[in-house]
């Protein structure tokens, strides 16, 4: 397992060259021969669309998008099967985001990778992910195949999230469901269902019992006492 981080500006050590950054995991994993490492780093840089000649440069000489490519090259250096990408495009400019998303999809196909993709941009999640898990205060509240989750969310928090996300089309007005209050601290979570103080559908049971995370339809899991009866709006 390897990680790709959110902020390409702070996740790379400014005093290390590209060769050191991308080659370090190789060294740690026993590739002590420098020539071999140079070859592998060159191959990785090419894979993510950077020139191998850049190997001796430092991160400050690269743009945000290029730094994110360096981070991806580092993550892929030891042939992981699972890559955790924590908000990999949220710090990037719009025109660079598309390049990185394309690169990630392309690498996934070529290397048969599994991504655990953490993000808050619902359009990006929909574009990349096959399955989505929604978390609230440290707990899973819903999990389903992406298009099903977007079309028919079963948890009130998922529905509120869908409504809160600003869609880049002025003709689609979002924000119809207002979520009042604040996310509680995980150190001092509410009783019962963690979402109940903010949930417009909360009943007495929600204040007392934590709902089980159960399969409501094939492969669609939800933790809500009222999931069977509620009809919640999604985004098509």
């Amino acid at each position, binding site marked *: 397992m390897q990680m790709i981080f959110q902020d390409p500006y702070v996740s790379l050590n400014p005093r290390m060259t590209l060769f050191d950054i991308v080659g370090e995991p190789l060294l740690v994993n026993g590739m002590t021969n420098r020539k071999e490492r140079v070859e592998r780093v060159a191959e990785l840089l090419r894979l993510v669309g950077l020139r191998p000649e850049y190997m001796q440069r430092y991160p400050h000489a690269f*743009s*945000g*998008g*290029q730094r994110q490519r360096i981070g991806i090259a580092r993550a892929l250096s030891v042939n992981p099967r699972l890559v955790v990408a924590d908000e990999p495009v949220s710090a990037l*400019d*719009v*025109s*660079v*985001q*598309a*390049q990185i*998303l*394309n690169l990630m*999809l392309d690498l996934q196909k070529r290397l048969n990778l599994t991504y655990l993709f953490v993000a*808050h941009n*619902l*359009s*990006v999640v*929909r*574009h*990349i992910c096959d399955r989505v898990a929604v978390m609230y205060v440290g707990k899973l509240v819903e999990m389903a195949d*992406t*298009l099903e989750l*977007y079309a028919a969310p079963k948890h009130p928090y998922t529905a*509120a*999230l869908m*409504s*809160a*996300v*600003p*869609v*880049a*089309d*002025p*003709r*689609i*007005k*979002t*924000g119809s469901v*207002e*979520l*009042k209050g*604040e*996310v509680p601290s995980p150190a001092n979570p509410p009783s019962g269902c963690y979402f109940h103080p903010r949930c417009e559908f909360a009943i007495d049971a929600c204040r007392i019992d934590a709902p089980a995370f159960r399969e409501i339809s094939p492969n669609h899991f939800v933790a809500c006492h009222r999931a069977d009866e509620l009809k919640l709006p999604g*985004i*098509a």
Partner: protein
Amino acid sequence: MNNSTPILSVRDLKVHFPLDEGTVKAVDGVTFDVYAGQVFGIVGESGCGKSVTMKAVLRIVEPPGKIVAGEIILRRSVAGANGSQMDDLINLTALDASGRVMRSIRGAEIALIPQEPMASFSPVHTIGDQIIEAIMLHQAVNQREARKIALQMLKDVGIPIPDQRLDEYSWQLSGGLRQRAIIAMALSCNPRVLIADEPTTAVDVTTQAQVLRLLRRLQQDRNAAIIFITHDLGVIAQMADYVMVMYLGLVMEQGPVDEIFHAPKHPYTQALLRSIPTITMTPRENLPTITGSIPHPFNKPRGCPFHPRCEKSIAGKCDQAVPPLRRIGANQMVSCFLYE
């Protein structure tokens, strides 16, 4: 004052930073009008000059940055002879940045929600003291009255138990509450122009929705103008009435939000909109990208700043001269040789 004359007019504004390595032309000829009751959105990628443009309007550009050309006209109504109201035009670029007039405008008539939220409040004074001080600086009220106004402001922006919060420090507040307190502070003197520079980048999605709803409501209640800066096209689509798209210190296009999203004219606007995943597209398809990357500010291309990345660039023309910003519809303007 009615809503059909601009409250703020910026004309051919240029702000340059002379540095040892060369001159950064951060803003290089920007023109726009903002009207009362309007949410004026500014979008553009990192470094295109959004914040510097607004710092120039407030006359708080950091040295060595300087306004080297252009005008910033603020229209305000003043009491004329026999109690009538008349319009008064002041050119902010002609004022002393730290002089009395500019200080009376900054914070009172034009207020800022800065991009760095930590810059808003000092950590050693309570938020109440700071809001009260701002109110007393611009309004003829005593300490007690100022505290009452501050309390009402915290209430208006939806802060629970406001009288307790007034005596707390900014670092004691959660991100969402702090952002509300910043908005309360910016609004405390009833500005006619509120500049919100990336007001929601530091908060989560549901808080973002709350903050956007709050700004919308305040703008409607007070008929203020909001200049809303973001690089998030989703936020712009939901918030703005009118949108200005910037690239490398210049205006590429400006127009009503529906035109910008559904009939964009400039190749850069078109490319930008194509490159974002949407909620209705087929997942996992390759997104169209813009070739190349944003040039370094020291190496700005000659001619149209977008020409090295533009698919429709006309050789011998786009690489020679900067296309002027021209009107192409009732309210839409574009800077591109394709529309000559």
